């Protein structure tokens, strides 16, 4: 049925092509349940539509997970200088919406700027609670190292700032992703090589995954994404950075369009201080494996048993 519609769509006149392609797209199956032929059809359909929409040759990759690969990520928080080049590179690589209205601007990486805080002698006698007879604590501090409470939209003259530390976060690509568990249509799932991906064409926009994610990694397309033709990255993957539509959820997928072909994710490539490391967890010689073997590493909110494949370390 869908194959017939796909063929019909491709044979139609250019004027009707868009409508016909969208019609066929609307009735396609969940990506994971498609046969290789159906996947190829879906790909051709999308390539045709995107190429028309963005007036350039757009490719939609459907490369599957490679055997023997389990992707992992490690971030050296001591090195991060808070320049946010990773945020910018990610938006450009992954075709995120970049409009003027608040709901049209989507970024998958947040670099949290944390106050260093301090303990000071002149506050030593301030008790807690203040002004009451019995004190159960002190107040000799300004917030220091509060867990995950920071700014991610900051504009200093230069980075790094003296009184701040930086904590970049994005999707943790959990081994036990709570977002996948709550999805009512199984449109988001963990790929065999590790990343948690979304079939944007199957997503119903119920936003349950957004409520379940403990890392605020998911974004909702409140409107049709604003993606200027000239800025659109034409090298895409079906489960990765292909342009999304209104009303669906999106998130980091470790640049599948790159990493499935042996390249680094855009954020790793752009990082000027080499704080970001990426590689195959199953290969003991990979950089990530070596970091896990030799450095002090930790994971965010480890108590939630989500088992992220995104590690933090410092040397």
């Amino acid at each position, binding site marked *: 049925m869908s194959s017939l519609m796909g063929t019909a769509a491709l044979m139609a006149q250019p004027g009707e092509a868009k409508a016909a392609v969208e019609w066929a797209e*609307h009735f396609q199956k*969940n990506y994971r*349940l498609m046969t290789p032929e159906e996947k190829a059809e879906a790909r051709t359909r999308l390539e045709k539509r995107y190429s028309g929409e963005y007036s350039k040759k757009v490719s939609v990759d459907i490369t599957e997970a490679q055997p023997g690969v389990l992707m992992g990520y490690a971030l050296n928080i001591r090195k991060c200088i808070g320049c946010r080049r990773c945020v910018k590179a990610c938006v450009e690589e992954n075709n995120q919406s970049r409009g003027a*209205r*608040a*709901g*049209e601007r*989507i970024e998958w990486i*947040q670099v*949290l700027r944390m106050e260093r805080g301090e303990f000071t002698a002149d506050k030593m006698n301030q008790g807690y609670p203040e002004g009451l007879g019995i004190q159960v604590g002190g107040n000799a501090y300004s917030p220091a190292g*509060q*867990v*995950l*409470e*920071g700014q*991610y939209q900051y504009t200093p003259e230069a980075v790094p700032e003296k009184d701040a530390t930086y904590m970049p*976060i994005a999707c943790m690509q959990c081994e036990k992703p*709570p977002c996948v*568990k*709550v*999805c*009512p*249509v*199984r*449109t988001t799932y963990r790929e065999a090589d590790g990343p948690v991906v979304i079939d944007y064409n*199957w*997503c*119903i*926009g*119920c*936003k*349950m995954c*957004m*409520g*379940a*994610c*403990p*890392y*605020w990694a*998911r*974004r*909702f*397309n*409140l*409107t*049709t994404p604003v993606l200027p033709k000239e800025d659109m990255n034409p090298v895409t993957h079906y489960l990765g950075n292909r342009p999304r539509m*209104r*009303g*669906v*959820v999106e998130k980091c997928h470790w640049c599948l369009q790159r990493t499935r072909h042996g390249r680094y994710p855009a954020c790793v490539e752009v990082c000027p201080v080499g704080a970001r490391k990426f590689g195959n967890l199953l290969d003991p010689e990979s950089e990530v494996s070596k970091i896990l073997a030799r450095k002090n590493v930790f994971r965010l909110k480890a108590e*939630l048993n989500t088992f992220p494949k995104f590690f933090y370390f410092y040397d």
Partner: protein
Amino acid sequence: MLTRFVFDYARYVLKGGTKFYAWMGTLALLIVGMFYVFYLQNTEGLIVTGMTSQIHDGLYLANLVFLVGVAAGAVTIVFPAYVYHHEGMHKVTVLGEMLAISAVIMVMVFVFAHMGRPDRLWHMVPPWGIYSFSSMLGWDVLVLNGYLILNFVVGFWYLYSKYTGKPVNPKIFMPLVYISIVWALSIHTVTAFLIAVNPARPMWFHSMMPIRFITTAFAAGPALIIIAFLIIRNNTKMWIEDSAIKLLTTIVIWCLGLAIFLTLSEIVIELYARTEHANSLYYLMFGLHGLTALVPWFWSSVVLMVGAFALFMTPKFRNDMKLLPIPCAMAFVGIWIEKGMGLIVPGFIPSPIGEVTEYYPTFVEWVMTLGIWAFGFFILTILLKGAIGILLGEVRFGGAAPAASAAAVH
């Protein structure tokens, strides 16, 4: 015979005075507004609402959760009627079932309203789509549809038997009634699970949620039913006995008291330890980082609920059928706030990475919400009017349509 039933039913419902048509006309107008904003949401996107990637559910999910409670609340009629054989209640059980049907339909429209892609809803319906057993939303949709079907079957089978004069077969009918009683609990429990199973949202992540949902539902549901019963009693020939209303009042008082107790327990436990996990509650009660949009909502809900409880405790209010609607309305609105804006929205504030943002429903959201409530009351009016006509014997098989008698609802 079935076609005669549908025909007679429709003819009876359509007959009405100016008051009836003015009521239905007003509702229809609001429903038109609902369709317009639904069109907006599905062309412009949810950007026309106040929802963001931080606070991605608001008024819609709030109303959804509340109305599941109202639907479940119908069991406060069905249970005493069939299990305790309460005489006064038994005569009007079917009205409770009609309320449940309307409330579940409202819930389903709210589901449509809050989705990014309602055009893809079929993705969750096998065999075309996929049903996910690990998803609480999947279970919620399942139990809600089941409850709708159960109430439709039980309610209309009963009405049909009244219409034809042939009694129902109790061997099949009664088991269905008992299933619907347990099922009523399940719909609200699963709705509580829906939000409570997310450790990412500490405010929701506690096992008190299901019982709190049930108690607030069994306060708000019957509170609405009491008001509806008093309206029916005063405007139609249908008489609802004092004993039924009194029993419902007792249920409301007990459940409202429990609900207040549970809220107080939460406040003490969360604010005593005052961990970061209490930030949402703190934001709700006092505001956080200078942002205080929900503070008036919370305190008005406290005043309404505690005030209603105090009034219910006063025999003058409890026993006077003219004053009774006041505490009922207060309890209803108070719980609507507590369970809606006071529970759903602060769950997102702060976000899991500590960001404090605020949510303001837009005009579009108010029009949608009002429209869906109007849609629900439109259906409820039709269902109640038809049911009353049958209960009064004005609609019955072979009986000449009572052209002379005035319509049940003027």
